């Protein structure tokens, strides 16, 4: 059973390493959008590693049971599903409140799209054929 404990310890170590990278990325990146990149990805995988690692680690000890692993897996899946949504909400709110991109950014297609949409809204008779709803059962 000690192999399980070793695997769990290794997973927790890897997870904390990614936590460290996530914090370092927050310091090193130039603007809010790039910071969200590092913070979201590394923190999510770091959490997965630590949480599932604890579950496997507990299997290898004498007080542990399978309940540890199933609970940690439920928590890990919950984190995996909700973390990107919160990141998406934060980055979208940052964009909507007018935080500029870093000066090294090469393109901003979203602004072009919003401007094109605002223009289409002012002259509705041109764009109306495009607006037909697309959902209709293909299956």
């Amino acid at each position, binding site marked *: 059973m000690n192999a399980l404990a070793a695997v769990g310890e290794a997973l927790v170590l890897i997870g904390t390493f*990614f936590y460290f*990278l996530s914090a*370092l*990325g927050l310091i*090193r*990146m*130039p*603007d809010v*959008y*790039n910071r*969200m*990149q*590092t913070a*979201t*990805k*590394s923190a*999510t*995988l770091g959490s997965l590693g630590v949480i599932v690692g604890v579950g496997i680690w507990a299997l290898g000890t004498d007080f542990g*049971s*399978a*309940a540890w692993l*199933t*609970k940690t*897996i*439920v928590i890990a899946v919950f984190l*995996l*599903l909700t*973390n*990107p*949504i919160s*990141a*998406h909400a934060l*980055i*979208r709110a940052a*964009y909507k409140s007018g935080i500029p*991109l*870093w000066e*090294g*950014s*090469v*393109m*901003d*297609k*979203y*602004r072009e*799209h919003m401007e094109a949409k605002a223009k289409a809204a002012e002259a509705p008779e041109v764009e109306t054929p495009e607006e037909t709803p*697309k*959902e209709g*059962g*293909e*299956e």
Partner: protein
Amino acid sequence: MGEASKISRYLYTVIVLFLIWLLLTASLDPQELGFGLILSLIVAAFTYEIFTTSGLANLHPKRVAYAIAYVPYFLWAMIMANLDVAYRVLHPKRPIRPGIVHCKTVLNSDVGKLALANSITLTPGTITLDVDDDNYFIHWIWVPDEALTEKEEEHVKAASANITAPFEKFLKVIFG
């Protein structure tokens, strides 16, 4: 995608809730199973209308098989993403060339679009900024050369091939 019947959506919600109960309690004691089933039935009665639109069709064997195959594929992409981020953070020159790019998707269902947006956020160098019908606006940490063209179609094609296409072949089957 049309809506499934009420009973099918209700049963699907019960099954999902009961699975979560099973994992959370991690016990096969008949009393716990019975109580979990009762709770699932009650909670599902309140929530099935907003939980799912396609009901038991989600449990089609082909969809389940693709969903299971998607898990290791996605975890692998996620580990590569983190190594990529690690490289960009630790490299002394900080090699980033960010930009907001425009992608299109072939997915139709709302759940599929949500899954695709989540997958994009957790994989190499990309994070979803906004979704508008089938247009995805994605903040990319390193915009490659082939996506730097002025022409809109070429740009969308290159960006979609890089970002959305690898997941769509799975998500198209899983969510339609």
